């Protein structure tokens, strides 16, 4: 596969990595009052840049666009190499959106406001970096650098069990990524001995032509790192803990951006680098995907904590991405990528909703909630749309991706498709359960609860402002998926070119 590069006239990507970092530096010296406006400003610029890139991106042929390359450590052949294809670009755009939304949302952080926003800005830079790096050392640097701010966000601004959750999150991810590092270095060394070049560039690894045995080994090493991040069953146990304990904005980022890194890794690295191993492991991935979908859907139904339900539903949705990816055909991969984008919108919105409920009702437990819908109609509507989009109601974003993923899977394995398809019912089940228990169920409500709800204020302007972009995007993606599919199609074809030929 020869890859074309279109160099960036203006280094937009580097700028969008640097802006959050620069603003983080400014915040360090700025007064606490300015923290929020400045962060919103920074993330708004980044969002505008990425939106511009989204429209400026030429999707007619496959090329790495906005490409920049500078020498960094010539001694070991590491360069600073960034650029986007459609997959990276949509992920970067999603990242920018998610951060903008969570900054607008973060009004009621009471303690250490400055540090809170600094941590988020650093996190934003690292997240963007992960998706745009084509040099594996830089990729790894961003991948790991992201751990530090996320660890602090969960650990400092989280709820009661936050330290346990933060440490669990850190150690799990660190564990996986070190194996990822071993795999990458193994390939680097193999490349040096076989071809005599010192390079950590993605494009050199892609032409490596590993023997089958090594492909299997490296696939497994990398997959361990990605699977923990996705998270795939049975590596998912850090996720509910982290989600439940993280502050609302932290959960939003965790669900909308961080989980995507794992599936992004599978799509970006595992498929093109290890085509044979990918084919070999299809049954395993299908099995893990189906287990994730069904098992975590069942887990979700049996929870009573709102955030925990949404967290498990995330694992379940990621299962769809996994099977879609490993269907190894165009429909499946397109479906997987669309599901990733859609899950970015829906999970972000659902966690915002959970945060909203907690702020008003001071509880995440379903037994303390219920019957709220009548008193907060705007919020109830927003929540309902997000929940339906997440459940895969046609016309909203969730349906498109899951449908395509199932279609792709159906071509490969009917059994997998049927099992995964059945779980759509489970998905609808837990989403409706969540919504019903938290918003309706009026008849069972004691009168003092109703009195309490009557005093509730509906959404404030800034809350609405953070919900709206997500909800609008759910409609846009759900009603007009063709544009998105066109956008990612050439990229999917390029990624699959080694597997299905072409």
């Amino acid at each position, binding site marked *: 596969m020869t890859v074309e590069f279109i160099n960036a006239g203006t280094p937009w990507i580097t700028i969008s990595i640097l802006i959050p970092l620069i603003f983080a530096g400014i915040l360090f010296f700025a007064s606490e009052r300015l923290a929020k406006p400045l962060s919103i400003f920074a993330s708004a610029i980044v969002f505008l840049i990425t939106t511009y890139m989204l429209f400026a991106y030429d999707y007619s042929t496959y090329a790495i666009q906005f490409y920049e390359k500078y020498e960094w450590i010539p001694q070991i052949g590491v360069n600073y190499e960034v650029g986007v294809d459609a997959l990276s670009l949509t992920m970067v755009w999603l990242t920018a959106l998610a951060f903008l939304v969570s900054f607008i949302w973060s009004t009621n952080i009471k303690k250490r406001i400055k540090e809170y926003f600094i941590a988020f800005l650093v996190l934003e830079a690292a997240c963007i970096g992960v998706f745009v790096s084509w040099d594996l050392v830089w990729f790894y640097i961003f991948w790991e*650098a992201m751990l530090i701010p996320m660890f602090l966000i969960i*650990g400092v601004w989280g709820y009661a069990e*936050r330290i346990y959750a933060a440490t669990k999150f850190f150690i799990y991810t660190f564990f996986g990524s070190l*194996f990822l590092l*071993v795999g990458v*270095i*193994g390939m680097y060394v193999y490349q040096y001995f076989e071809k005599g070049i010192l390079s950590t560039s993605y494009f050199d690894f892609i032409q490596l032509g590993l023997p089958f045995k090594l492909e299997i080994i490296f696939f497994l090493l990398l997959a361990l790192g990605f699977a923990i991040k996705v998270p795939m069953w049975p590596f998912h146990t850090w996720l509910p803990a982290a989600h439940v304990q993280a502050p609302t904005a932290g959960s939003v980022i965790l669900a909308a951006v961080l989980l995507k890194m794992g599936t992004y890794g599978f799509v970006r690295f595992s498929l093109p680098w290890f085509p044979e191993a990918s084919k070999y492991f299809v049954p395993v991935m299908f099995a893990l995907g189906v287990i994730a979908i069904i098992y975590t859907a069942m887990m979700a139904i049996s929870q009573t904590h709102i955030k925990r339900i949404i967290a498990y539903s995330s694992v379940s949705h990621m299962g769809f991405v996994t099977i879609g990816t490993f269907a190894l055909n165009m429909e499946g991969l397109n479906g997987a990528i669309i599901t990733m984008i859609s899950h970015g919108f829906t999970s972000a919105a659902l966690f915002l909703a959970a945060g909203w409920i907690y702020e008003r009702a001071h509880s995440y437990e379903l037994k303390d909630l219920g019957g709220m819908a009548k008193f907060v109609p705007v919020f109830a509507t927003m929540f309902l749309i997000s929940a339906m989009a997440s459940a895969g109601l046609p016309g909203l974003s969730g349906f498109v991706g899951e449908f395509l993923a199932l279609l792709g899977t159906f071509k490969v394995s009917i059994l997998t498709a049927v099992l995964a398809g059945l779980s759509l019912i489970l998905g609808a089940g837990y989403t409706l359960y969540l919504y019903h228990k938290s918003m309706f169920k009026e008849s069972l409500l004691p009168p003092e609860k109703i009195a309490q709800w009557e005093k509730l204020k509906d959404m404030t302007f800034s809350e609405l402002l953070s919900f709206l972009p997500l909800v609008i995007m759910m409609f846009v993606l759900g009603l007009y998926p063709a544009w998105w599919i066109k956008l990612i199609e050439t990229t999917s074809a390029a990624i699959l070119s080694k597997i299905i030929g072409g």
Partner: protein
Amino acid sequence: MSILEQLISGLTFPNLYILLPEIIVLLTAFIVFVLELLSKSKFSITIITTVGLILAFLSTSIIKEGGVTFYGLYLVDTFALLFKAFLIMGTLFVVINFRPYFDAKKSYYGEYYYLTLFALLGTMIMVSSPNLVTFYIGLELSAVATYILAGMFKRDYKSKEGAFKYLIIGGTGTAIISYAIAILYGRTGTFDTLEIAKQVNLNNLDYGVIGGLILLIIGLALKASAVPFHHWTPDAYEGAPTPITAFMATVAKIATYAIILRIMVEAFPFVSKEWALAWAILAALSMIIGNIIALKQENVKRMLAYSSIAHTGYIVAALAAPTGIGISALIFYSLIYLFMSVGAFITLSALEKTPGWTNHIDDFKGLAKKNPVVALAMLIFMFSMLGIPPTIGFMGKLNVFLALIGSNIWWLAIVLVVMSIISAGYYLRVVVYMYMYDPVKTSRHNLAPPEVVTIGIMAIVVLFFGIYPTFFYDISTTVTSLLIASIGR
């Protein structure tokens, strides 16, 4: 010509020009020594030491051309100069923090300064020795000075205990090394490393060489506190005054790594497989024991002592791959280790001035609230030691990884990975206590200007070179190629 004249004409005047850094350090030490007796003003001693060290540091850059002097007993090459520059710099950053710390501890003596300078001189002699005898002299000079320094808190039981342990075990170490040197001399008839290499090549291995090599490795491992020869380290590090611990953990350690590398590469290049295996085992043990015991420590200073054992493991693990990559990984890691370690220990020494501070992990509760800058710096040092990018510590580990996997030593690479994960347990704990708990004590932490400067510079270096490590790559690969070229000298 009389016999006397013949003798004199045979003498060559030592090339003092290349000895400039050593001369400056020695002169400063003597001046401080005399001044300490005559003058009441301790402040002038601080100033003179600082100025002397700065001059010595600058003088390393004046020397354009290295050379051998003292009849082949003293070698100044790029390797030696590079390490000297970093050793002097490390000492400088430690020494400027003596005054605030010892003032607060009410034991501000001039002895600290000249003893540190003598220890530094010893380490400088060590790194530029082409000869086992020169090495031994340097080692003893630095060791004896450090024994005294470790026990300078005369009324503190722990300090005395640590110093005593250090003296006994360190003395055993030097004894072992002297046996090793004697055996090697007996077998090869020379002290010169390159000559030994030739002899070992000619005669191949026999019991004499093997015995000497084993003893030498044991002695060096003891000095570098590799497991199972590490027992002095926790007590000596914990008991010693904290800036002295910083000195022992960085300057003395780094000189030891350098001389291990030099002796192994120069004297035994033809038996590299054998010593590589020995160092691999020592490295694996150090990583495993150091990290696991560090997990259980409640005292942060003691935890850092165990972490330094673990870091010895990471660093000598590079020797398991006796290739160019391995050597440059060792040089790279030892140089960057200086920054993180000085940073972490000086942070401790700055905090220790607070009344009631015991270095217990509970004392760190809520530090981020009370003193956000220090907490941030400590966070950077902890993550760097853990090896998380974008800190320089990650680059160090990355190189060791590269070397190990490049030489197909997967088992050690896996040990390194697993132990790095385990080390997250205790490094994160410090961060957790600083950031995620509320302060229990309300005492304020006052930082003296030198401490702020040191901690700040170290944190910036750790971050900046983590993003732009090219400089360190440059020097470590250059020095490596020169070192390898010198084998055939």
